[in-house]
């Protein structure tokens, strides 16, 4: 499974996607404030990462429904569970690695098992905190959360989708793990966006092969698709914003209507998006070739976010180059 060298794209570059003018964590925090204006049951909790999770506006707007527990992620999840038993909709915010690993058992036993209405607001997904190194990367969280019955996992690809995800998460009855990033990301959606939990968005039509991304890698898949047109390849791009329950219909359609399925995730390729897609295809008996791009059973190392995405083959040019290699 450990990768051979990631091939590099040798063709012309393409126009990068426009970047959002706001950091994704800040956008997420503002979206939550908007939800909380009309829903007095929404609470926000954080564990000494108020600034880093973009919740300062929430804390200022609704101090009576905000709690910073200090550096105590496990207790934060327990407190959120207790609030939820009393009809509140607590949003517990911390870094993804802490939400999914430090507080793992609290999330499973205090939130998922009793099916309590807690939203886990997990920032700095994947290698978003690149230079923080392995301790601060969240490359296992989707795999961990997917195994918890009752858990829904959502990962928005840009600011507009973050609004939709936040609204959907709060409206959904039951635990939701919301996988968020850190800095500004590319703009994927403009204007109206239809959004439904469990229903993947088709962001680019294509009929040769399908690229499936989630969160940050949706933009990278779009870039890869644009590059692949130089080789006369028409790539479909799906935004798998709901990692659980996964949209098996969209996966089946991709496998039936195109000749190859490639997943790209800022996560280990074990148990995340690629794992989920592989499970669906295998159980449906779909023999279409599948390739999983992501961090290949190693620790990602130190580097900037974009550098690490490129190093692990999940930036647009590297995705396109690997696709060409798969097709050979």
């Amino acid at each position, binding site marked *: 499974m450990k990768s051979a060298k990631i091939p590099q794209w040798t063709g012309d570059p393409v126009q990068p996607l426009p970047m959002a003018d706001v950091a994704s964590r800040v956008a997420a925090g503002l979206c939550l404030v908007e939800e909380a204006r009309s829903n007095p049951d929404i609470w926000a909790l954080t564990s000494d990462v108020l600034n880093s999770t973009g919740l300062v506006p929430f804390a200022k707007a609704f101090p*009576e*429904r905000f*709690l910073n*527990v*200090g550096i*105590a992620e*496990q*207790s*934060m*999840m*327990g*407190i*959120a*569970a*207790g*609030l*939820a*038993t*009393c*009809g*509140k909709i*607590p949003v517990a915010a911390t870094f993804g690695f802490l939400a999914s690993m430090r507080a793992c*058992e*609290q999330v499973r*036993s*205090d939130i998922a*098992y*009793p*099916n309590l209405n807690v939203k886990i607001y997990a920032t700095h997904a994947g290698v978003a905190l690149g230079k923080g190194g392995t301790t601060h990367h969240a490359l296992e969280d989707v795999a961990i959360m997917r195994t918890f019955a009752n858990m829904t996992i959502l990962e928005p690809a840009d600011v507009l989708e973050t609004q939709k995800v936040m609204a959907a998460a709060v409206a959904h009855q039951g635990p939701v793990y919301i996988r968020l990033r850190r800095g500004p990301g590319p703009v994927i959606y403009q204007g109206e966006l239809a959004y439904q939990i469990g229903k993947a968005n088709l962001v680019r039509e294509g009929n040769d092969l399908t690229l499936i991304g989630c969160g940050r890698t949706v933009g990278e898949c779009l870039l890869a698709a644009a590059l692949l047109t130089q080789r006369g390849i028409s790539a479909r791009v799906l935004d798998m914003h709901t990692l659980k329950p996964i949209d098996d219909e969209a996966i089946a359609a991709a496998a039936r209507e195109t000749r190859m399925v490639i997943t790209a995730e800022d996560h280990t390729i074990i148990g995340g998006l690629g794992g989920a897609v592989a499970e669906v295809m295998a159980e449906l008996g779909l023999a279409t070739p599948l390739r999983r791009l992501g961090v290949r059973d190693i620790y990602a190392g130190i580097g900037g976010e974009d550098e690490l995405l490129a190093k692990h083959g999940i930036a647009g040019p590297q995705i396109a180059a690997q696709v060409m290699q798969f097709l050979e």
Partner: protein
Amino acid sequence: MQTLTPEEKQELDLIANKMRSQIIEMFHVAGGGHFGGSLSVVEILVTLYGAVVRFDPAQPRWEERDRVILSKGHASGALCPVLGHWGFFDEGLLDTFNQLDSPFGMHPDMNKIPGCDMSTGSLGHGLAVGIGMALAGRADDKDYRVYVVLGDGECQEGTVWEAAMIGSHLKLNRLTAIVDRNRLSLDGATESINALEPLADRWRSFGWHVLECDGHDPAKIHQAIQQAHDYLDGPTVIVANTVKGKGVSFMENKYQYHYAILTNEELEAAREEIAR
């Protein structure tokens, strides 16, 4: 301060005895159980439900109810008979304890057991959940109280102290923790494995109002809880000194009965002693 009359205390003693009998019978049918910690916590739970807690068995999720979290979830064998006795469900159902798809098991499930306010089982989780409940009550101007029953061995879990810091910082005076101080955990004496003493001082240093009482005397437990209610500056912890396996002499103070399967002779001896 309200105190229990001798008649009220006697009534709770009788109920405690009935609970012990049900624990023995339930665990017999189930083929084993957490005897030690279930028997030690009986008077704590009986006093709570019999003389302290506000509840309505017809509305187990009544918003105004007091909340009880059995953080030492392995004493489910004591909680279930107590909830049955106070009418949350037909006590006859307890015969299914630990059977396939029974609502009642080794650790309690809030979505299956009417009257159970939180699913527990893994130690060190309940206090934080209680903080969340108390916070919600304070935010909504409710006057309900939250009781979290902890095991003493459970206090070796770091999350207990993490939550203890938060509870006192937030000055949650409607939150009361009760530690079932039976001095034994699964492997032996708490003091020989990882000493808890000075337990009261430790809680005090974490900002809690600390009381100690005899955990097998409903009048003393009741009195301590009343004192906890009267303390308005923060949360109170009651270290209730108990005997693991209380009421069945061959189990008392024996860590080997933390979880056990009784022989027929032991079962008869336990029945006989409780019937006395």
